[in-house]
């Protein structure tokens, strides 16, 4: 390290030194670094009597927006339009509480996938970014290796499947493979998976890619229940698990400065209230439960971006440190070449055969040649000036002679 450092100190590039200084002088905490937050919020059921599933998703949509994730980074999938259903006693609104204090449909909502666009295929293509070029940005999950992704799903499910609309379902393996592919394609840094459906915990049993924390509303063979119904709308408006998760998020996580952690949220689960056994899966997370519990909620629900560009100590291919080392290596190589060239020109005894055997050096030398100043023409400037002056004198003499000779005789 020190030799490299010394080497670089001697290097002429000031920028390089500055960059390296930046790396060395900022030894930040290891793994909570992410550069963007994305949320994928999916309701999978349509029809009026499933009003609560859309209300679930819209409630969460509202929460993540409140904590700063912009619409451009939220993918909202709603298979039905409850607000405009003729059965809706309050046209144009969706509420998730019988007090109807907050209209979730409001005037600022961006649904990215709606109606029959909400399919298993579209969902998997969205996650893995296997979409046509002409698919607009609003329908793409633009996450990268630095993105924390929140995936929330709700609908009607069973043992290791979740029904989409009325026609198809996504299996636990499909979902696990999609997340696996996302990891391979560097589409997330950390991922929080939440699901509220019957037998929800079976949906994350097959996950295998790292950095995932998963939580669900109910264990195998358990139903997920709705929380309460609105007697004027005439349907249940929210599910129990989502209701209590939201209650925690809304009452405790009041700003992006909140230091509450995933552990706090999961500890707030009360089976007596939820009426089913919520589950959490930590084992895919580096450091397991201990590390995972320390993640703050705003890491996933908020839009907290650390100022540092990248993780300085990471040694993965593509990380900044790796790049800098590579640049340093290149700089050293060029310096060595430069020195060799200098020696060669000074001695002037270098062999032509040597040059031919090293085409890189040839091109290098040729490049040097072109840089040298060369004389374009042979004549000297004085000759040209004399010629010009004599031409001017000749003209002046001709004009003078003409004016004397051509004077009218008067």
């Amino acid at each position, binding site marked *: 390290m020190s030799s490299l450092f010394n080497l670089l100190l001697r290097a002429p590039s000031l920028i390089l030194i500055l960059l390296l200084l930046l790396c060395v002088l900022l030894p930040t905490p290891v793994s909570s670094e992410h550069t963007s937050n994305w949320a994928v919020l999916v309701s999978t059921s349509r*029809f*009026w009597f499933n009003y609560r599933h859309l209300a679930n998703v819209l409630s969460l949509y509202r929460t993540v927006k409140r904590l700063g994730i912009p619409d451009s980074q939220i993918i909202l999938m709603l298979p039905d339009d409850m607000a405009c259903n*003729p059965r809706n006693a309050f046209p144009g609104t969706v509420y998730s509480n019988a007090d109807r204090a907050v209209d979730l449909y409001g005037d600022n909502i961006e649904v990215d996938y709606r109606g029959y666009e909400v399919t298993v295929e579209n969902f998997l293509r969205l996650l893995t970014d296997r979409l046509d070029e002409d698919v607009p940005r609003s329908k793409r999950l633009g996450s990268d290796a630095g993105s924390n992704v929140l995936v929330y799903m709700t609908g009607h499910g069973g043992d290791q499947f979740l029904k989409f609309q009325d026609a198809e379902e996504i299996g636990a393996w499909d979902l696990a493979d999609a997340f696996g592919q996302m990891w391979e394609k560097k589409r997330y840094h950390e991922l929080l998976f939440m699901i509220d459906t019957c037998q929800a915990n079976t949906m994350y049993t097959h996950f295998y890619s790292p950095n995932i924390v998963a939580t669900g509303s109910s264990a195998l063979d358990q139903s997920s229940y709705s929380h309460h119904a609105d007697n004027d709308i005439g349907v249940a408006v929210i599910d129990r698990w989502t209701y209590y998760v939201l209650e925690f998020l809304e009452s405790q996580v009041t700003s992006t400065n909140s230091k509450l952690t995933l552990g706090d949220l999961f500890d707030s689960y009360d089976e007596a209230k939820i009426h089913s056994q919520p589950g959490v899966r930590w084992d895919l997370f580096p450091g397991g439960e201990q590390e995972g519990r320390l993640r703050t909620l705003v890491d996933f629900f908020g839009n907290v971006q650390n100022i540092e560009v990248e993780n300085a100590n990471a040694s993965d291919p593509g990380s900044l440190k790796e790049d800098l080392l590579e640049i340093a290596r290149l700089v050293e190589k060029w310096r060595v070449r430069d020195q060799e060239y200098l020696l060669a020109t000074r001695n002037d005894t270098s062999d032509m055969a040597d040059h031919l055997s090293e085409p890189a050096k040839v091109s290098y030398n040729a490049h040097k040649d072109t840089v040298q100043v060369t004389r374009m023409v042979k004549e000297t400037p004085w000759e040209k000036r004399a010629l010009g002056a004599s031409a001017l004198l000749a003209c002046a003499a001709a004009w003078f002679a003409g004016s004397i000779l051509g004077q009218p005789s008067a």
Partner: protein
Amino acid sequence: MPIGPPFTPDYRKGQLTAIRKLRKNPRVLFVRLPYILSLVCIVAGIAWLLLLPLDEYSRRTYISENALLPGQVHAYFSGSEQHVFRGYKQELEGLIPGEDQEKGVSKADAQFTSEVSNKVQSILSAAGLKVATQAYEYTSSGITHQGENTYAIIRAPRGDATEAIVLVAAWRTADDELNLNGVTLALTLARYFKRWSLWSKDIIFLFPPDSKTGTQAWIDAYHDMQPASVQPLPLKSGALQGGVAMEYPFDHRFESLHISYDGVNGQLPNLDLFNTAVSIASGQMGIGANLQEMWNHNDSYEMRLQTMLRGMVKQGFGYATGAHSSFMPYHIDAITLKTKGEGWQDEMALGRTVEGLCRSLNNLLEHLHQSFFFYLLMQTNRFVSIGTYLPSAMLIAGNFTIMAIALWMRTGFDMDTQSGPTAVSTSAPKEKTSSSSEARSSKEKESATPSPEPSGIMERQLALPLTLVGGLHLLGLVPLYVFNNLSYKVSPIPQVQQLNSMTFLSISNKQQHYTMATYICIAANAILPTLLAAVLSSLGFTTPKPQQYLLIKSFSLLLLGLFLSTLATLNFSLSFMIGLLCAPLTFVSRLNPQTTSVGLRYALSTIGLLVLNLLSPPVVLLGLCWYTGVSVEHVLTQAAFGWDVWGMWTQVVVWCVWWPAWISGCALLGFSLF
């Protein structure tokens, strides 16, 4: 000669001889076993039915269709709407002639006059509904039923006009009472519903003048299936998803709601609709619900059984039990809510129940299909489904088929060549035609004689049995035609009978064509089989051979078994009842003159004929009328009306399935006399 390989090993030879012995002496297989099996089937079928009300065999009802969400909405029909109700009621009451003892006019007899119709129309128009009328006329048994339906449509403000719900308030209830409160309530609801914006389906308010003809005419015309005497509808909506009829035939407060659900021909509405009504009435509104006129149901076995049997009787007879019944043939689920008793529930409570039901139906995304269409209810929250009850009727129908197949096989074997080919009447219940002692004696005789016949195969002579059985079934069309087309003549000029036949019947029961026809039918039934037997026996070339007696019985029972098992899937109760009434036919056959002494033969067949005559269709009808206290005239007028207007098929089953089988059985006994 036994057919087989020339060199048969000894042990195979032994087996073959055993089988051959059984084939040579198949008496056990063909003669005794079928009777035992048939008897077991009948007993098991009845026992099965009696088990159904037990907790282990019936189930609690539940809502299958997620979309219905019964009782989840708050019903706002109350308060000021009650003033509107009173206002409308006063307007309508002003048009009804008051009580006048001298003229014999009673308020309860008020008809749906054109003034009332105009008032109803003006109220509906004022509430902003589209109104239309439809005149119709039906003629049955020489009685003309005519009237005019009034109806109005609320277009769903935000829905597409592809679906609709019907609310029916007939001016006169199914029991022919004045339904003034029901009609007023419907008018109030129309005004109230019009102001909601949450309807996804159109709502149609139908005001027929009575519960028998009006809805039938309307629903036929709605589907363009009306006869020429019924006007087409000027105003229509989308596919009907459900119907609710309201009956409130008195002025005091009520205690509970009676839910009728039986449709024409025993068709039932989807169980979800009934469950929703029960759930909203008792669960949300706190109004008790009753069914099948069981007012004091204590959920005991006896009460459950009684409820179930009442439901089965209604289903079996297949007549319309209310304004809702006419909807069923078009696969539109409908029920009637009728107020009952004296309690503290007012018309607003009924209105809220109907509002809740409409909100539930409004939630539907597709036609009711999740729950059962074939069920027997034994309590408002207890039922058995078709899978559980069907074996009962199937076992009874199966007993005829078993006997028919056994007889067919038996006619192919020449079992006792020594004593001559003969049909042996065998054991039957003692009160039936042949006594078991007689059978035993004949059996002893058989066992005493060895059977050295060579081949054991007989040729069946089918012409006579087929002609006879086929002819008898065709002959059933005669009473069917006569009973459906008999004119209920009172005066030479067919009187235009405005609305109800019940009061009509009570006024003039002097000329009883139907009663007369019934007695004639009984007499004909008594004579016809014996006459048939006498004629066939006396004409030399038609005298049946002993084998043919068995074949007649076989074909007759085969058809009966086929018809009844098919019918069991469509109308379980009718199949079960006819199966029970026909059960003795399995056990009657011609008494063998060679094995039975003349005196015993005459005595037994006469007793048998008497017993069977007690179970003939017209005698059963008379017996039922006597038991229930309803006049035969009324029942048969209703039946003819059902045939002409509702498309009721019960008579066809009686005259073309039951009656031919009965005649065949009697004729077989009659042959013993000759």
